[in-house]
């Protein structure tokens, strides 16, 4: 595969096994800079595992991962430094309950990027202001609604200007009426030029925001293409079945 200059993240032939169960069976995916890619597929298809392999939370059993042209699957890289180049948002927000919302957002800046406290807080407040939570800066996360917590978790992930944003089913734990505000923020980040790889169950959102959609099943990419094509005219039988079951 030719690596063009604009490729931000490229993973080739990723294999991941848990015991004798193969969860990822030779997956290859590449993200151009400013590209938004959606991963769809049934539960257990390997979406979350793929995301966790990419930022080295899981060790891969084969394949290679390049971030900005650098081989980050090389065991000699400094994993903490590599992880800091990704922003990750989780299904259950995973905000730190003992820290204020502002401390949550500025933690990466202060402790990883070593930005001075004043500067970090200024940046943190700007981000919180952007999502309308500046007045909640000093409260703890349990004072926020689910949607507010997830939006705070998103700005925590982007506070350090990561090269790639990984979103792991970030609306799955939310009440339906709170999903919209979170998706709106992701939509904005996408149009601002962030590079995003997101696992999602929100097909309408994937169709709306993603430049490209990957359908995973059984640890392989069954089909991929622009949303209009993948949702409108799926080629593979397996994709058709999956989409048919979602929208009866």
């Amino acid at each position: 595969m030719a690596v063009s200059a604009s490729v931000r993240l490229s993973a080739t032939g990723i294999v991941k096994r848990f015991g004798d169960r193969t969860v990822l069976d030779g997956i290859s995916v590449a993200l151009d800079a400013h590209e938004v890619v959606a991963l769809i597929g049934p539960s257990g298809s390997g979406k979350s595992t793929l995301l966790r392999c990419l930022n080295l939370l899981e060790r891969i059993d084969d394949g290679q991962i390049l971030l900005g042209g650098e081989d980050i699957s090389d065991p000699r890289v400094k994993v903490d430094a590599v992880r800091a180049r990704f922003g990750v948002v989780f299904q259950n927000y995973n905000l730190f309950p003992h820290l204020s919302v502002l401390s949550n957002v500025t933690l990466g800046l202060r402790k990883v990027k070593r930005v001075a406290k004043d500067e970090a807080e200024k940046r943190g407040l700007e981000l919180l202001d952007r999502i309308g939570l500046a007045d909640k800066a000093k409260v703890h996360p349990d004072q926020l609604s689910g949607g507010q917590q997830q939006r705070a978790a998103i700005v925590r992930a982007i506070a350090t200007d990561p090269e790639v944003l990984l979103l792991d089913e970030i609306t799955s734990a939310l009440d339906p009426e709170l999903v919209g505000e979170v998706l709106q923020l992701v939509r904005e980040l996408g149009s601002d030029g962030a590079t995003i790889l997101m696992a999602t169950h929100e097909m309408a959102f994937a169709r709306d925001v993603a430049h490209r959609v990957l359908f995973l099943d059984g640890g392989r990419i069954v089909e991929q293409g622009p949303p209009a094509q993948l949702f409108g005219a799926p080629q593979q039988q397996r994709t058709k079945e999956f989409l048919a079951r979602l929208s009866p």
Partner: protein
Amino acid sequence: MTSEGPAPSSLELERRAFRRRQTTRSVLIGALSTVVFAVVAWFLIVNAPGWPRVQQSFFAPDVAIAALPRVWDGFLLNIRVLIGAVAGVVVLSLVIATIRTLRGPVFFPLRALAAGYTDLFRGMPLIIVLYLIGFGIPGLRFTEGRIPAEVLGTIALILTYSAYVSEVWRAGIEAVHPSQRLAARSLGLSHYQSLRIIVLPQALRKVTPALMNDFVAMQKDVGLISILGAVDAVKGAQIEVSHFASFTPYVVAGLLFVLLALPMIRLTDWLTLRLRRREQIGEVI
């Protein structure tokens, strides 16, 4: 309660009045029965045959007053030892618990050492540790001068109690949900940073009652340094007992320890209750 919203209905007012009457009655009955019980108990005790001898042996006021200064001086030493031991235990137990969370083959010897330490000192009676440290170490003659008995006693207490407390920490660390560590590492924090900034502060909240319990237990065992010859409250009482034909000085020393423990016990109860309230919605039954 603020008086917002509509006025309570007459039904609710009647219920409140009834509850108030019930409360007043309960309080009165409680007070009355307590007084009756105290009077009867006091009457039975002081009129029991042999009470004068019991009083002379354990509750002689003149002996208590005479013994108090020396026992009190000794008790101040106990408090100093307790403060030193608590500080030492917090540090050592955290180090042990941290070592036991380390992953990777490089740290295997350290992990094994820490695990062996907790096994050894949780099993070994404190009194044997006191003898070994208190009498064994000076016997080696590593130092020119004499090491004070209270210092050796403090070391023995720290060694024993750190083994227990490190297990409490470890339980607390394991009780913090793994997703917290996942989020911390995803930000690029190192293992040590995640532990210090994210995991330990949350673990502390979960284990505070258990930690306090261990410290209450330790404040009692501080009295054991007397067997090494340190003149603490227990030793002071022992000296006074030999002057008077009465064990009252021991009772005085014992009560001082109880007075020291009470605030810690109450604080522990309060913290436990608060934790329970926070974790369960509705009334505590």
